[in-house]
């Protein structure tokens, strides 16, 4: 049981860092950005490339975060800004186009085969549960990233501006907050967090151009469970989702009912993520019609 809990925390950490970026963007520009998943993949590859130049992990990840943040700003200027007058659905569709182009671009540059980060891990035993030094590093990084984001949003002028922008764009503009610059900053943050999350995900698994599909479902499920525009909600969503998934595939249901061991095959992990999202959406008491929490 402890193992299930540990697995849940590690997986939730990988998902949460990517998920908060989607929420952040949604709260300001009001559409679910599919290209965000590609920012995560791109970030993973940037880190890999920077590692290839002989840089250490912290430096490589920082460079990757900055680069991906800039990419997110460029995409905003070239695509989303000109489309700002359209309905959210239209922007969602356009964001898928961006994602598709990025995906092929990554595969064209780095090749279709998987790549793996070289990390030496130590294994620790907690009773009969196992955790690795890499797991601990991933969880610690995630917590640190969340604290930084929280401080940024609630303890700085920029954060106040961003939250004002998310609450009411017009009002924020009349108060003299430059919305375009703040939006650009928001995209930078979203891109940087995606890069960090993508790097953590790739560290625990591997890098490959089609890893976007492995990230897409759980991340969007987490964000949706949390209510799309709430950053704390995205983190909570990631935790709930991860716990649900790991319990479903980690508990020996056979032993509960009979003497024979039976597990739900782990390939149903994504099915559980999606089903959880659909169920939460269908049975959520709060009305979600007006496009998220305000």
């Amino acid at each position, binding site marked *: 049981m402890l193992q299930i809990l540990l697995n849940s925390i590690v997986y939730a950490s990988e998902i949460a860092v990517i998920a908060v970026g989607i929420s952040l963007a949604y709260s300001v520009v009001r559409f679910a950005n599919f290209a965000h998943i590609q920012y995560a993949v791109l970030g993973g590859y940037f880190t890999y490339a920077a590692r290839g130049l002989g840089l250490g992990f912290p430096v490589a990840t920082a460079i990757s975060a900055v680069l991906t943040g800039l990419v997110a700003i460029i995409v905003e200027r070239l695509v989303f800004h000109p489309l700002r007058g359209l309905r959210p659905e239209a922007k969602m569709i356009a964001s898928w186009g961006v994602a598709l182009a990025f995906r092929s671009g990554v595969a064209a540059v780095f090749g279709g085969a998987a790549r793996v980060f070289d990390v030496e891990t130590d294994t620790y035993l907690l009773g009969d549960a196992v955790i690795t030094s*890499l797991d601990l590093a991933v969880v610690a990084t995630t917590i640190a990233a969340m604290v930084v984001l929280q401080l940024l949003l609630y303890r700085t002028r920029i954060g106040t501006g961003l939250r004002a922008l998310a609450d009411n764009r017009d009002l924020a503009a009349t108060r003299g907050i430059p919305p375009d610059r703040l939006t650009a900053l928001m995209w930078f943050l979203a891109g940087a967090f995606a890069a960090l999350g993508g790097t953590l995900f790739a560290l625990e698994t591997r890098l490959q151009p089609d890893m976007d599909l492995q990230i897409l479902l759980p991340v969007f499920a987490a964000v949706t469970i949390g209510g799309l525009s709430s950053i704390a909600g995205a983190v909570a969503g990631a935790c709930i989702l991860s716990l649900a998934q790991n319990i479903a595939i980690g508990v020996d249901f056979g032993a509960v009912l009979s003497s024979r061991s039976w597990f739900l095959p782990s390939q149903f992990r994504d099915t559980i993520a999606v089903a959880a999202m659909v169920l939460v959406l269908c049975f959520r008491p709060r009305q979600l019609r007006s496009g998220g929490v305000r």
Partner: protein
Amino acid sequence: MQRFIHSMVGAGAVALAFLSSGAQAQSKEPIPIGVIANLTGMDVKTSTDMVRGIQIAADAVNKDGGVDGQPIKLIIEDAQYKTQEALNAATKLYDVDKVPAVIMFGGSSIELAVAPIAKQKGKIIVNTSSSSAKLGDFPGTVYSVLPLDDIVGKALGEWTAAQGVKSAAFVVPNNTFGTGLMDAAATAFEAKGGKIVAKIAYSEGQPDYRADIQQLVSSKPDAIMTTGYGDDSRTIFKDARTLGLKQVWYAGYPSILTVENEAWMNGHLMGVDNGGLSGDVAKKVGADYAAKFGKEEPLPHVFYGYDALMLIARAAAAPGGFSATTMAKSIDGYQGATGAIKWDVRGQRIDPPIDVISYKDGKFVTTGQQ
């Protein structure tokens, strides 16, 4: 006027001479050969390596003057691991490029969809990767250079039991290849008195397999029997290592697995494989691969791809040219990168040489034949 006609004729003659000399310099008309592989989507690395093997073989044939002076021209198409795209690629190759044969990499959803069309058109498919027994339903159309799973599976089960292993758990990919090998190995292993304590068939392309491996840990087997491809097998090994597994891995086709950590795996991975990979031809192909594509370690698919093209070239060079008949005879006396090849009446590879392979000090070594 007459001068004009003269000059026209003269110019025409010059042009004609130029054209014909150009044609001569290009030697004879090339023979087009099609390749269909998953260059995007799933199984990209294995597909790519198969294509590279084919390219190495084509280069070798063309360097030796081609097939009776005709060079081989490869036309490589992407199937995206999708049936419709495989059919698009196949109709293009057969109808537009007029290839007599296509070398295919892909699961059965790719190859079994193309096979009826090839049969209808009287063309050939050389299969390098799918081990579905249904491919045998197209005799005269489909030829496999990859042996059927049950042969290697049976050898694996018997050999593992012979090593004194009493109980084993299976970890295989959840597809015809994985479960087919598992069933054959399990039957053979149990027939020799072994006990199967867990059968885990994992879905390909998952981010991690911790939950699967944890189930395996709790079943406490003496040893683990496995097979699988590159990236997924690497993730399996990584999760097994971090979860503290110490058992020995007995594998079908150990050479297609990707070892994740040399030190941990040293002496802990062995199994039975299609033989010949330790032979001279394979060594030469491996050297060509290193020369052409750098230091990346070649997957065995390179060798299957190489043999597929070599057999087609042999069939084309036979008296009467390329046909189903010459294709069927192309294996006579052929010693390939994957050893000697023998086909049954259904075009499926039988009696492959079986090697016993161990992983030691960072590489696979052949320790014996079975």
